[in-house]
């Protein structure tokens, strides 16, 4: 779960990381009032959960409260990468001398946190990593010890930060580690961390991504979820404990297990079809989950056929089939349904589904072939 810049910076401030004066505004009038409080010059920043806000014109500098109002009107009317701008952050304009990147994230390869810094801040760090990898310094942190002062100092030296700033840099890095640790973040990033004309440092922009699996420890942070972050159908799926990702094809997929769900999509594409979604319905495929999943898949108007691929294993397929039939009673799909079931009593399961005019298959390849053919409008023989 991503946090907005203003939320992230509010958290930074609680850990004594210096941030610019400023507040969030929902209207242009509010933006004007905030700019007045800040003394006139202000930066208007769109609060949307996507990168590239600056390039899209979502970050603007106002010289006066009047201009702040005018620019806020423009920014609040924007959509950036499809997301509506509902709020702007109005920050005091800073006298920037130098921009640095500082971020903490999980390193999968070592299984430990990694603190990353670069003297080339303010731009996309992944771009820097690709083009000038020598400009990026890293230190790996022992999760049982936490970030030590010498490690942060090594990083400052590694990025050739002038010595005068080492003390403040080290304090900020260690504070950022506490933020990362105590919010269960998977990313805590200051980009840019700026050195001002007077020599002090300021976290000009901030980003925190939280680990969804740790939100049970942070109910106050869980409430900050921005509903725009995910599509309505994905949000609905999460409510039922389903993982769903919408794609742009026409073969709807319902599969138990994430790996198998991906493989099912891949087979559809391999056969010349286009998957409409990823959906993991979970183990056992109980009727109420199947019904919810079916509703979600069919809410996508592009879907021309639904392929159910349930590898039951221990689960009894006749029970899964009855669950599917109950769900179909409830949802009444208007598109062809193809089912492939494997597990205990699978023949009985297939028989029940075939009776209900579902197309059945015994292998994944066969199921996918039938689904792709149905999506292309080809007639399909009903077995039995």
């Amino acid at each position: 779960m991503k946090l907005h810049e203003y939320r992230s910076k509010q958290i930074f401030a609680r850990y004594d990381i210096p941030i610019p004066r400023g507040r969030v505004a929902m209207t242009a009038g509010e933006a004007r009032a905030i700019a007045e409080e800040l003394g006139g010059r202000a930066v208007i920043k769109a609060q949307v959960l996507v990168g590239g806000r600056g390039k899209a014109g979502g970050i603007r500098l106002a010289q006066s409260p009047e201009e702040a109002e005018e620019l806020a009107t423009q920014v609040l009317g924007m959509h950036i990468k499809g997301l509506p701008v509902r709020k702007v952050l109005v920050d005091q304009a800073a006298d920037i001398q130098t921009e640095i990147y500082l971020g903490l994230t999980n390193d999968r390869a070592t299984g430990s946190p990694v603190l990353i810094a670069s003297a080339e801040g303010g731009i996309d760090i992944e771009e820097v990593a690709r083009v000038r990898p020598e400009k990026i310094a890293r230190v790996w942190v022992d999760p049982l010890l936490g970030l030590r002062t010498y490690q942060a100092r090594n990083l400052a030296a590694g990025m050739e930060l002038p010595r005068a700033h080492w003390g403040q840099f080290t304090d900020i890095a260690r504070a950022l580690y506490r933020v990362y640790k105590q919010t269960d973040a998977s990313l805590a990033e200051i980009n840019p961390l700026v050195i001002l004309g007077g020599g002090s440092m300021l976290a000009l922009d901030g980003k925190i991504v939280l680990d969804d699996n740790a939100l049970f420890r942070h109910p106050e942070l869980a409430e900050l979820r921005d509903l725009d972050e995910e599509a309505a159908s994905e949000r609905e799926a999460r409510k039922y404990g389903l993982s769903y990702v919408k794609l742009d094809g026409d073969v709807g997929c319902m599969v138990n297990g994430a790996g198998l769900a991906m493989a099912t999509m891949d087979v559809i594409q391999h056969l010349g079809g286009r998957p409409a979604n990823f959906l993991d319905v979970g183990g056992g495929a109980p009727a109420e989950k199947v019904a919810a999943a079916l509703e979600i898949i069919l809410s996508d108007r592009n879907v021309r056929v639904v392929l159910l691929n349930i590898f039951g294993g221990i689960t009894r397929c006749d029970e899964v089939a009855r669950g599917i039939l109950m769900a179909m009673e409830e949802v009444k799909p208007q598109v062809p349904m193809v089912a492939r079931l494997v597990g205990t009593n699978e023949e009985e399961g297939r028989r029940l589904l075939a009776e209900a005019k579902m197309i059945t298959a015994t292998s994944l390849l066969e199921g996918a072939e039938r689904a792709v053919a149905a999506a292309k409008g080809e007639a399909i023989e009903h077995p039995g």
Partner: protein
Amino acid sequence: MSILADRRTRLLVQGITGREGLFHASQMLEYGTQVVAGVSPGKGGEWVLGEKVPVFDTVESALTATGANCSVIFVPARAAADAMLEAADAGVPLLVCITEGIPVQDMMEVRAYLTGREIRLVGPNCPGLLTPGECKVGIIPGHIAIPGPVGVVSRSGTLTYEVLYALKQRGIGVSTCVGIGGDPINGTNFIDALEMFEADAHTEQVVLIGEIGGTAEERAAEFISDHLTKPAVAFIAGQTAPPGKRMGHAGAIVEGGEGTAADKIEALTAVGVPVAEHPEAIPDLLKA
């Protein structure tokens, strides 16, 4: 022969009185696994599964009483890290954690604690181990695989079942199937499993089932090129997955251009590992 689990495995089930733990303990017992103990704090002294398995309050007391040498963990996500540490601290040499949804930072602490200790963790968020005909530790359905010379290692659950089933239908047997799990940070990686398969006299070839996210498959390809003398084949799930989206598994995400199926397939193909176009095609790629 096999790796990690065999008929000498004496299994402890942490979380044995929970719904999942109890159900799968009965399945493991039925398969022939020696399920010697269960742990469920507060329920010590009880017996479960037809009075066959004693329940203990702590891993330490279960170990003292039964000499268990492997623990399978069905404890809910918020308590799973604690369960792994408890088992490690008590001296269980092999931990298999089935639990899904464990916070990443908990896993980083567990891994840091295990580093340098003679303890192997498999998982979390995995289906466990199956040595057909001998022993099952976890939730892999026993009847979908037969004993044989093919080692299987996978990041997935039901996709692994699909492959085991496809092998069985062609009469191809498996030495051991290792589910290493779909989390970004886990205990055993592909290389660990490949090393064990290389050393196992009865494993003749290896099937590797990977998916998008991270670079574990790329590192496995390097290992295969340098150290694996046995033939390997692979399947990589997620060729159609869009970047930046988590595909069910916590670890299945293409981030910053890293972790794509195309990169993994290229890395494996480059070292001579045939990559199947779909999971049911894996048996065709194995050496007869």
